[in-house]
């Protein structure tokens, strides 16, 4: 990854969407940037953090998204252009603050939030459309269709934000955030940041606002709608809305975001350039109604192409209803008609499918004989379940949990959470994590379940969370459990990183986003101070970990915390920490199918570094993958897996 601060203006670079967004933040001259890691948005803050050494921007990883927006809003209140980034789930965490910020408005510096949604949910545990929040709180929203446009749009969003005195959203999707493509950087601002000042009370000479209180809201709510109408006016002539195609198309496609290029490609692929046009909307809330109304009059059929919720589709249909009878001739296609889905990621192929159906065209990319081979090939190809990495400490933790719960024998269960350890709900974690919702929810659920003894719940209640998640949202739930004398055991899988999203530092790592030393907010100290019983284990010491779990679960009341501390294997790799063991299988001891273990190591334990030797049928170590953690030597009942210390 190149340092985005040193890119040459006017040159062409290959940038990921998230890096282009970060460059846009720099080009806009923002002075404060904050965020919480979450794919597909995670790379923006690291790119800015790297740039911080060349520019004067302040960059931080905040403990959660609500705090992140508050940090950025603070910058805005003091007159500094500020920026905040999160994934779709983060918008919910931030919402509690944002639904008040719309009332107070922002300060002297523009405030832009980049939210990256995840259609298809490849890296999320939900598939929500966060655009709704903009409509909910009456603040402006834009959607870029490429990395280059994302960069330009961020810059323009500051102008809109400052013009209407509202927070402005830029909504990306994973496909925009993660696609790398040609981007031409612009100039970075030459002038220094304005002096940051929180305005004095009653200073009538200061044009800035001096109060940011959301009440009394009758005073603020009416002006909010005036601001929104002003934003609509600005959007009517936005450079990010464009039209391509014939003047009177048979079909008008209204598209936004990543879907725009699918439409253009689909139209080209079907040679429909003369019959179908594309109205690309970069500004999707408030809807530029005049612009849309003008184009609705030129056609009889409209197809909406947007990912997830029919957000634009509904706005336009609402407009069409208001414009009746002028719009009575229109037929609408999209999510409502079933031509496209209001879930999952769209593609050029899905747009081609919709176009072919509406325009009555047959589309066959391959001949029949080849299609048949494809069907055969697909049948031959097995699924490839995701897994924890070789050497992952979560595998050790879940193995200990699985065995501990079996030994305990009371049908104990684990409330799961969000992170790599979410994989605990499936084979890699031996199906041990039984719930998965928002960050911190595992502990909140456990706090509630741990109170149900009075109604007969006699199963041990466990919760798991990661170290980063602990600071993000677990602390209030833990305090709740202690305060209300609940009975559960919280496992903190402390792998010294926000591993799922790319090893970002957090309050427990002793390092800030920009690499400066930071005070460590110690897990043990926090949990003890809250009143929990605390033990720390290295999950690779299976016997001790299992004993500790049994001891904790046997306690009849109170909140117990077991900190499972072992560094993420990938972080070890990045820090060039050599493997502890050189593993091999003693062929004379591994009995293969003759052993009563029924392939415990490859079937059940399932570390990717273990395989079955095709010739001997015995277990073997895949040298290309083994991380040398030594755990498998502890689980082989025949003691056939041997680790030699290196």
């Amino acid at each position, binding site marked *: 990854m190149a340092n985005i601060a040193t890119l040459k203006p006017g040159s062409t670079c290959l940038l990921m969407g998230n890096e282009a967004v970060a460059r846009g933040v720099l080009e806009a001259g923002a002075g404060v940037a904050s965020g919480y890691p979450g794919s597909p948005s995670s790379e923006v803050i690291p790119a800015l953090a790297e740039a911080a050494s060349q520019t004067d921007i302040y960059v931080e990883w905040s403990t959660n998204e609500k705090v992140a927006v508050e940090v950025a809003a603070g910058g805005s209140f003091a007159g500094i252009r500020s920026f905040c980034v999160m994934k779709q789930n983060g918008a919910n965490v931030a919402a509690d603050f944002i639904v008040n910020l719309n009332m107070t408005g922002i300060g002297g510096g523009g405030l832009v939030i980049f939210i990256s949604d995840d259609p298809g949910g490849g890296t999320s545990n939900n598939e929500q459309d966060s655009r709704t929040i903009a409509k909910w709180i009456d603040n402006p929203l834009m959607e870029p269709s490429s990395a280059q446009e994302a960069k330009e749009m961020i810059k323009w969003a500051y102008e809109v934000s400052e013009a209407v005195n509202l927070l402005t959203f830029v909504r990306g999707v994973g496909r925009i955030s993660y696609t790398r493509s040609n981007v031409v950087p612009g100039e970075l601002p030459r002038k220094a940041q304005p002096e940051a000042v929180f305005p004095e009370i009653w200073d009538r000479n200061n044009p800035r606002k001096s109060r940011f209180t959301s009440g009394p809201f009758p005073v603020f709510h009416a002006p909010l709608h005036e601001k929104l109408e002003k934003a609509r006016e600005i959007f009517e002539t936005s450079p990010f809305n464009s039209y391509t195609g014939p003047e009177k198309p048979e079909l008008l496609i209204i598209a936004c975001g990543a879907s725009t290029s699918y439409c253009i490609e689909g139209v080209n692929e079907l040679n429909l350039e003369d019959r179908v046009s594309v109205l690309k909307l970069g500004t999707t809330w408030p809807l530029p109604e005049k612009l849309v109304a003008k184009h609705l009059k030129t056609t009889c059929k409209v197809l909406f192409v947007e990912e997830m919720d029919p957000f634009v589709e509904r706005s336009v249909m609402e407009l069409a209803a208001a414009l009746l009878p002028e719009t009575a001739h229109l037929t609408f296609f999209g999510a409502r008609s079933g031509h496209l889905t209001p879930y999952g990621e769209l593609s050029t192929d899905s747009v081609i499918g919709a176009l072919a159906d509406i325009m009555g065209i047959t589309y066959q990319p391959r001949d029949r004989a080849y299609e048949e081979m494809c069907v055969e090939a697909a049948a031959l190809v097995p699924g490839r379940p995701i897994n924890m990495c070789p050497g992952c400490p979560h595998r050790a933790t879940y193995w200990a949990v699985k065995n501990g719960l079996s030994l305990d024998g009371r049908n104990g269960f684990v409330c799961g959470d969000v992170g790599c350890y979410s994989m605990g709900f499936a084979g890699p974690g031996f199906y041990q994590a039984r719930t998965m919702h928002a960050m911190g929810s595992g502990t909140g659920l456990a706090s509630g379940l741990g109170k149900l003894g009075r109604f007969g719940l006699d199963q041990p209640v466990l919760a798991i969370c990661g170290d980063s998640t602990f600071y993000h949202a677990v602390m209030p739930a833990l305090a709740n459990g202690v305060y209300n004398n609940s009975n559960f055991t919280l496992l903190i899988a402390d792998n010294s990183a926000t591993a799922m999203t790319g090893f970002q530092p957090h309050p427990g790592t002793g390092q800030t986003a920009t690499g400066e030393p930071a005070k460590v907010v110690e897990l043990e100290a926090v949990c003890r101070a809250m009143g929990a019983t605390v033990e720390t284990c290295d999950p690779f010491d299976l016997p001790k970990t299992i004993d500790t779990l049994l001891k904790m679960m046997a306690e009849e009341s109170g909140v117990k915390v077991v900190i499972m501390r072992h560094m993420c294997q990938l972080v070890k790799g990045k820090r060039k920490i050599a493997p502890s063991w050189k593993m091999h299988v003693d062929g004379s001891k591994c009995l293969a199918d003759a052993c*009563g*273990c029924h392939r415990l190591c490859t079937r059940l334990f399932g570390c990717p570094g273990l395989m079955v030797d095709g010739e001997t049928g015995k277990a073997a170590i895949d040298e290309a993958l083994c991380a040398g953690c030594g755990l498998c030597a502890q689980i082989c009942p025949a003691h056939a897996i041997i680790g030699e210390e290196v």
Partner: protein
Amino acid sequence: MANGINELFDEVINRGLCAGCGACITGCPYIVAHAGRIVALDKCTGSEGDCYKHCPRTFFDFDGVSEAVFGKAYPGGEMGQVLEIFMARATDPEILKRGQDGGTVTSLLALALEEGLIDAAVSTRMDAEKAPHGSVARSRRELLESAGACYEVGFSLEAYRSLPAESTEKLAIVGTGCQVEALGKIKREPPQNSPDPRNIRFTLGLFCGWALAPGTFHPYLKSLCELSQVCKFEIPPRPRYSFEFHFENDREAGSVSLDVIKPHINSGCHYCWDMTAEFSDVSIGSAETFPGWNTVLVRSPRGAELLALATEKGILETRELPEEKLSHLKWAALQKKRAAVEKITEKSGSKNDLLHIGRPPEESADILSRWNIL
């Protein structure tokens, strides 16, 4: 039909029939004993398992096992195959002190080790907190450490598992009826990855009326006394009706009524028909009204040889078992069978279905007639 771990749990463990012998643990990576229970750590994919096959509470083929152990069909009667009956006690004062009753078991094992007839003895040993575990003794010292009775279920056949499958050590195994039955099944159908059962030179059976469930009994026992100070547990012969625990030095022994103890009896023991460990080479128990003596039932020629050697070497002294004592023993053994059949019928819900001891209807009738309790 599959007979694996799932069936073992459905038919035996979850039904409260488990005797706690530990045979299922032998050679299986998925089954362990923990806190007095049999626990399956994982789902095993095998449809057939030694765990099911060797369990004394799954179908017990009396003639088949008898063939494997004694080379002939099961004779029935109150006490199964018996060659000789007499009383015995150790001559070695150290063994007399450490061992239960007459110290016969420890004496025989010590002799077998000394004479090179065996390399190791598998039995039960109590830890410092007096919880029983399977143990392997390879010297007189280790033997003495494992001497003395523990009345709790110990899953001690697990110790057989700790021996490597390729081991050629000659073994003696000490066990109660359920364990000796499991060993009989193991001899009939050798296990996949435990030592060859032909290495088991002697099986010494212990008389057993019932054992206590560690899950509830051990915490209770702990509340009664400082367990690390206890040197011996004992249930003395009638008319005393108590469970006693003796301490090192001269501290007065503690005692509780058996009525308090009995609720802690392992539920699976109620389904046991085998007071005298009928499939052993030699069975040994208390001689009741003769304190300091054991009752000995010699069942196989190799058992007879070992006893002959012991008397010849003067390690054991023997005397005749009085006739009325013998009839009492037979009566007690038969009572155990009757009680077991009653409990089994209650569980199965049918007089024709005797669960592990007989499948309906012919086999059930067959075993009852051999026991003369039809």
